[in-house]
């Protein structure tokens, strides 16, 4: 890793918060914790599809390689609206596009950030998901080269052969530390 610092003082953004849920949205009752109910629920395997939020949940906590104490979400590098599907939720093959925004256009860490998103999703999404990772249009000076690099299977595989790189990668994937 180069010692050059691309953005020493990045802007921090508020992270999203969830709304209070007092009960299940459709429920009339505040708590339906009858034990008999629970047994029934336990075997209930009605499908809950993987959605935008679930994918965002996977990548929001990755820490920034330049600022280990901050997450990609805090720096607004990734956000839920930047995740999109181009096929209906029921189809067996699904294409997902994850877009991210480097904090500065000359950010030399962008490849690394993209790679960390790639690896997290590679490990966490079922095989039927095909993931495309792109930088937000106009947010980086070498946008095309970056996009190409991040979606080239062989180059990703080659990068993961480098033990030093993988070590830093694991640290970032483990999440913000301080």
């Amino acid at each position: 890793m180069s010692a050059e610092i691309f953005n020493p003082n990045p802007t921090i953004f508020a992270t999203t918060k969830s709304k209070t849920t007092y009960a299940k949205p459709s429920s009339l009752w505040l708590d339906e914790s009858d034990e008999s109910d629970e047994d029934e629920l336990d075997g209930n395997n009605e499908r809950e599809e993987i959605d935008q939020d679930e994918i965002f949940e996977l990548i929001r906590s990755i820490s920034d390689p330049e600022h280990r104490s901050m997450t990609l979400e805090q720096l607004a590098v990734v956000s839920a609206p930047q995740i999109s599907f181009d096929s209906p939720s029921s189809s067996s093959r699904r294409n997902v596009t994850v877009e991210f925004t480097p904090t500065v256009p000359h950010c030399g860490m962008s490849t690394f950030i993209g790679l960390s998103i790639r690896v997290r999703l590679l490990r966490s999404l079922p095989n039927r998901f095909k993931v495309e990772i792109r930088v937000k249009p106009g947010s980086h000076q070498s946008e095309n080269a970056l996009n190409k690099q991040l979606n080239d299977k062989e180059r990703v595989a080659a990068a993961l052969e480098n033990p030093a790189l993988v070590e830093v990668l694991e640290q970032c994937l483990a999440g913000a530390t301080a």
Partner: protein
Amino acid sequence: MSISPEAEERVERLVRTWMSTGRNEEVDLTVSELSDVGSLLSVVKALGEFLTSEEDEPRTKGVEFLSLVLGRFPPEKLSRQSVRVLVTFFRGKLEDTETIVPALEGLATLVTLPNFASSDAIDIIQSLFKHVKMRALVQSVRFTVFTIVDGLIAKHRDALKGLGKDFLTGYIALAEGEKDPRNLLLAFAIARVLLIEFDVTDHVEDLFNITFCYFPITFRPPPDDPYRITTEDLKSTLRGCLNATPLFGPLAIPLFLEKLTAGTPNTKKDTLQTLDECLPIYGASVARANARKLWNTLKLEIFQPTNSDIEAEALKTTQVLIQTIYSDKDSSAEATGEEIEGLAREACDECIKILKEPEKSQAKPATKILCAFMSTTPSVAKFTLSQAVPHLVKLFLNPDEAPNRAPTLRLLSDIIIAARDSTLHNADALPDEVVVPLSAFKDEVLGVLTVGLKATSTSRPALDGLKGMVTTQGLLTDEEVGFVVHNVNELLSEDEDEDVSEAILDLLTSISVTAPRHISQTTLPLLFTSLPDRAPPRSAENERHKYWRTLAFLKRLCVQSDLFEMLVVRLTTKLDLIFSPTPLSSEEETDEQVDDEPSAAYAHSILRTLADVLKIKVDKGDVDAQKYIDRLLPRLYHLHNFASLSTIERDWLAADARLVNVTAEIVTLIMQVQTVQKQEIFLSSLFAAFIDGEAKKVAEGLRKLPEGKLFLPFDTSANSRQKNLIILFTSPIIALYKEVKLPTPDEDAFLDKLLLWGIFVANTNSEREAAFQAIASVINKRTSSFSEFLSNLLEKFWISTAGNRSTAVERRKKVINAWTWITKALLIQNHALTQKFVDKLFELFDDPTVSWDAARSIGKVVASDKVLTKRHHATIKILHAQRFFNSVLPRIVQGAKDSEDPQKQNAYLVALTSLIKSIPKTTYTHELPSLMPLLLRGLDLPDAEIRANVIDTFLATADPASKENTESMVSEHASSLVSTMLKNCMVEEMPSVRLRISALRYLAVLPSLVRYDLLHPQKAIVIRELAKVLDDPKRAVRKEAVEARTNWFKYTG
């Protein structure tokens, strides 16, 4: 006094014997021969030939014997003259390399004697300096030298001071180069005395060299160190030297700076902590001279911290630095109103400059520094506030900076809170004497914060800031607090996210402690009026969410006694309104299907709120909870009794089992805080109502209870609503004291009746449980009154019901359930009958129809529950679980291993898993290695719950921190565990969500428990198989799968 010739001869003999044996006996005998004489002259005489021997060994032994005798000699018996002679003698022996070791021992004893004089001290120290070459001596001997010096310094300090320079140079040469931690502890202690009490002006550099060369301490005690010297001991005694004199300052600071820049995290931390102790001693001028350099280094640790620990230490050191620089002139500065100059101003300016961009990441550490300044000196704190607060206020009001209002308020709130928590406040000062530094900016800050409340993005930090202000003593007037409450009330009607709601509640709750009036007069009426009188219809999800939110607010705000009373009054009125007859409109009359469930659900939420607040109050020990036995309970009983008696269908709403269950909780909560007398009075009304049919005895309400209807809930022909009310009959009973008897002529018969009712009549599980729980509770508290009842159960009842194979299976299961509760009542008090009751359960293990139910009960009888508790005045003996576990475990293990019948074997496995699940971890941990094979078999039982319990047990005992303990146990079975877990986490094979989750969790911890080489062959399989689980239909399962798979990816050798 002189010694007899006979004695002299005996001493001579003893000396000779010792020379060949070296035993302690001779030493002791010699001491007793001479102790009356007060002189060791005869020993020296007897030793004569040895002491002058040409050979080395006799000389050494000779001096050694004398030292030993001296060491055991009664100290007060040695005359001044003898001491003098001995000092000279031992000093003489220091020159001889063969005798120096025992001679030092002798001197070490002499130093402690009462007749040891200052002149001796000077002689000894000079001899030491002259003859002792520390490098030639081993650790223990060097230790003796330090002990001698230490003893001399302790008792003859002035004499040594008289030696001046010679003493210091001599000692420095002696101590230089010492490396052993045991010796260093002494050397550091000596150095501290020298630095503080001796004139060290000319030797600062030498002393610096023999102390600072040890900084930082990197010593790690070897395992099982018999001397038990810790790194901390060394660090703190060394610090005692480093901070002993201001003269060290100019030399020390550059060294500290070097360690701070180049050191490891541990060194950095040690250096910062040492600086904290040293700076105040080194003084203002040293601190001022090095201020810039120190600040530049400290700043680095705050803005780019190595870790949060060091960041906190660096902030602390910055505080110490500022305090050191400014404390001496603070009092004068305050008097003259002099401006702050120097580091505080420069650092402040630097931080404020960074705060021009409050949204950037550097703003946070900059604020931390400013906050740290709040606890330095009053004038610096005042100066910092005067710089930071107006700056942030201006920034907030600047229209160009509008997008950055949220971070601006965040920083402002941090500063308000730091000012509040400043350590500068004098806790003893009277409230009106306290000058609150923030007062000067009160109005503009309050203004900015109330503006901040109005926008969604800024409301959270604004609320935090307001809380900071409200909780600052003496800052806001009562009127201003009212103003804050008024502004916050406006937020109540909006649907905010959880964080904001939490902050609102937090602020209002802290106000309710100091100024409840504002809450009760403005906030609560607002909340109460926002609660609808009628339940919103099923489709009105938003309305429903709103009343839930309002109730959640009330729950938090109404714990204080006056506010709670208000809550009870308003909510019971609301309940009456919900259940009052609807003035039916003509359309509704035609529409037969009126949806009443939302009303029941609304009432349920209200009751839930009351129960939750009561629980908080009872847990806190609020005494006002008592009075609600008269104020709340009759209203609630009336509600439900009415519903059970009414013939109009709409009135039946309040009989809903879910509502009755919450009321039962309320009843038990209130009952448990009553006195014995109050309980007795209530109980007699309760029996009058439920047994004698006088329903109004416990009820009190607006609508008259229907006449002519029978209230006999125990009757077999009672309607289901009435039967359900049995729960309200048993809920007070479970909270009775053991002094309270049941108001019935024959208590045995009554329990019999209740038991049979539970088995034969009760409609639902919760009714049945309620009956059994009441029986268990009464038996637990008054076991001796029911011995006949219990023996009847054992001798007759069991055989005719559960023990009888021709009884219907369902009925037998109910009896087992009742049996479980009664056994539990006995077990928790270690009662002798427990074993007999448990035996009956074991008897059923070879009956396949009920064996699993009986086996599960083995665990249930010892599981903790919410009924038989201390709070409910149950009789509980400590360690009953341990005792029970030890008594049944051998039987279960035996059964699970030996039994010929696989059916029966399985029952024992079920019992084992149920038992382990029910008892505290510490009870079974030591048995776990031997139980592992059985538990693994439990994982093959065709029951998801049992499997999940087993895995949860594994999880509970899987502690990566104590790897040594778990590793051997798990490693042995590691690969079979992996395949079992994989089987149980696939949705195709395992429908239970809970089991899939448990299995995945265990897969996720395995890599931290087992050495990589053992599971290496399975890594690829696990990763491949888990890829399938990533597509599980349930989100919660997928989440665990991600976690587990990530851990396996990272699992490497």
